[in-house]
């Protein structure tokens, strides 16, 4: 049994079979071969080794011609490793004596060597990459056309990977994925957002562990504690089974909240909306009794295919959500991606700092035809229900005005062609940079609503990349600087009479509900999975108490103090009902 600690990014506990993905998306199940088929399988293994050898030789020759003998030598070493007598004996014996499927034998055996290399604390540890290369090549040749990819999963699994790319997660057959575990990533990483959207547990940032696990083995994933247990013993499995059961009971209890409003004890009605990534999630939000969609992220449209989405692609997705919401508001956010993440884009040159680079509204304003296509589809969807548009990462007034100008232009275009849309469609901006907060008194005159994106606001305010393990502990929603920016933003919006909501992880965690309501927030946008819990939290507190909590928090001067205080308040007021 091996217990690993990572970063919890999506709650829930699950027990399931491991599906190990390497960087090319192979999946290697633990499978056995029939005794009668052993000879055929050995032959297949032999052929794969031969084909792999040919590939390595080809690489060696190409590199030799281009860079010279010294660089080619590494491939010579790969060949030697592949042909290593011990390795070949082990592989053969695994198939012949243990009746392992050759793919499984290759994966298990080579990963064991990789692990030994990784554990060496000198430069030889890098040889592990060579072993993975050989493994990959062998698997490619073994699997051939029968290569099983993520799209072809047919039974429930927990996906274990080095890192999941947005396109991989988008192409997953979501019916069968019970959880995600990745070596890289942090809170707010793409895996985290998708897992949250799918309402499945996820743990990221675990560090290297894939060498310790093989496909098909049982894995326990505890998305509350950020714990992953490999090769669990019976006792541990039994203990977690109980926990899974208990969670089901709590979920059933929270289910009863579906038809009651999010209203505080002193009668203040809170608008509780859902954050979604995929159109199918609209249904999940509705079934939990939400007041609308407060944040519809549209990035998946740009990530699932190599070509740019057409107006019809956009419209099909938006109209599905708008129709499902039956007249409730749907806030559609325009593209919020960096050029570095997009399959269709070629970044002009390497960006040293993508977070501070060409992304979101900046990218949209640079790629006008693409931006207009999205706006046309959003406007067309506005004829079907209460649609509002939201511009991300606005940091200057000029950007906001430019975006509005493009929108007005697209409206004119639609009107000319007699295409229906709502000419009064509300326009909002994300407040997620300190610049936007400082200038909010000016911005607020030119927007119909604002949405405070705490994830980015925290990152830009504290100058912390939350995906970077070295500094991730500095990323803290409780930081006094963050609280002051939030407080200021909500004050400005209230004085101007402009609705404000908070999306981002902060609004979805009941630890912050009292603080946010106390700061004056009346709209919360949260992941579908958090709707019942946050609703219950709103129903368990009074605004008067919340104000006191907010005032005291604002006087504290360290994130640690604030956090301890809020945790204590949460326990005190919500313990019987939520936790």
């Amino acid at each position: 049994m091996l217990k690993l600690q990572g970063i919890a990014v999506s709650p829930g506990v699950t027990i399931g079979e491991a599906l190990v993905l390497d960087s090319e998306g192979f999946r290697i199940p633990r499978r056995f071969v029939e005794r009668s088929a052993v000879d055929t399988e050995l032959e297949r293994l032999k052929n794969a080794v031969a084909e792999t050898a040919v590939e390595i030789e080809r690489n060696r020759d190409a590199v030799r011609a281009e860079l010279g003998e010294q660089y080619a030598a590494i491939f010579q070493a790969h060949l030697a490793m592949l042909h290593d007598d011990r390795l070949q004996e082990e592989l053969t014996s695994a198939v012949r004596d243990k009746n392992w499927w050759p793919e499984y034998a290759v994966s298990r055996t080579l990963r064991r060597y990789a692990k030994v290399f990784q554990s060496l604390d000198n430069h030889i540890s890098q040889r592990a990459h060579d072993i993975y290369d050989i493994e990959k090549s062998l698997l490619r040749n073994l699997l051939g056309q029968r290569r099983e990819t993520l799209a072809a999963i047919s039974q429930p699994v927990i996906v274990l990977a080095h890192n999941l790319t947005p396109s991989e997660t988008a192409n997953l057959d979501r019916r069968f994925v019970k959880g995600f575990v990745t070596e890289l990533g942090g809170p707010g990483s793409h895996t985290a957002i998708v897992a949250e959207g799918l309402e499945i547990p996820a743990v990221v940032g675990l560090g290297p562990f894939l060498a310790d696990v093989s496909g098909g083995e049982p894995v326990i994933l505890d998305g509350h504690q950020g714990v992953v247990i490999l090769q669990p013993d019976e006792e541990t499995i039994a203990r977690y089974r109980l926990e899974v059961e208990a969670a089901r009971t709590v979920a059933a209890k929270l289910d009863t909240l579906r038809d009651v409003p999010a209203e505080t004890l002193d009668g203040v009605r809170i608008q509780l909306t859902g954050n979604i990534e995929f159109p199918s999630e609209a249904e999940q939000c509705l079934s939990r009794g939400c007041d609308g969609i407060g944040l519809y992220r549209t990035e998946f449209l740009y990530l699932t295919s190599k070509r740019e989405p057409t107006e019809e692609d956009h419209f099909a997705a938006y109209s599905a959500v708008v129709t499902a919401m039956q007249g409730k508001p749907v806030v559609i956010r325009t593209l919020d991606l960096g050029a570095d993440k997009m399959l269709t884009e070629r970044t002009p040159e390497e960006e040293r700092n993508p977070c501070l680079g060409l992304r979101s509204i900046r990218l949209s304003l640079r790629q006008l035809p693409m931006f207009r296509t999205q706006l046309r589809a959003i406007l067309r969807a506005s004829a079907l229900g209460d649609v509002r548009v939201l511009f991300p990462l606005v940091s200057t007034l000029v950007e906001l005005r430019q975006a509005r100008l493009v929108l007005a232009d697209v409206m004119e275009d639609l009107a000319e062609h007699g295409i229906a849309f709502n000419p009064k469609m509300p326009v909002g901006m994300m407040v997620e940079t300190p610049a936007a907060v400082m200038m909010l008194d000016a911005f607020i005159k030119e927007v119909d609503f604002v949405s405070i994106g705490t994830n980015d606001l925290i990152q830009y305010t504290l100058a912390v990349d939350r995906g970077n393990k070295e500094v991730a502990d500095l990323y803290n929603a409780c930081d006094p600087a963050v609280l002051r920016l939030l407080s200021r933003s909500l004050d400005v919006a209230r004085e101007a009479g402009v609705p404000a909501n908070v999306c981002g992880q902060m609004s979805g965690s009941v630890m912050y509900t009292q603080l946010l309501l106390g700061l004056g927030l009346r709209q919360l946008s949260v992941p579908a999975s958090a709707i019942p819990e946050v609703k219950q939290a709103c129903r368990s507190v009074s605004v008067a108490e919340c104000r006191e909590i907010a005032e005291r928090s604002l006087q504290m001067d360290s994130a640690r103090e604030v956090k301890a205080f809020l945790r204590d308040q949460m326990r005190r007021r919500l313990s019987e009902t939520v936790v």
Partner: protein
Amino acid sequence: MTQETISREVVVGIEQGLHARPADLLAREARKWQSRIELVADRQRADGKSILELLTLAAEAGTRLVVEATGPDAREAVDAIGGLFDRNFSELNSHT
């Protein structure tokens, strides 16, 4: 047929240690001989004919190893392998 065991000490002189290329060269040399050939470090033994095992020794520059051969051509094998270390695997640089 004699089953004599011959051994001698060698020192890893290569700056980057016994990495992939010298390990490959060593394993190839070892496979020319019938004898069983092992390299012995502080706490570990490795099959001299297996590059993968040699790498797991993680022998850095300055590490002392013992070359041990058992079999009919043990003496020649140890001389040949010892020679590689004595020449500091100069064969590797011959084509650059």
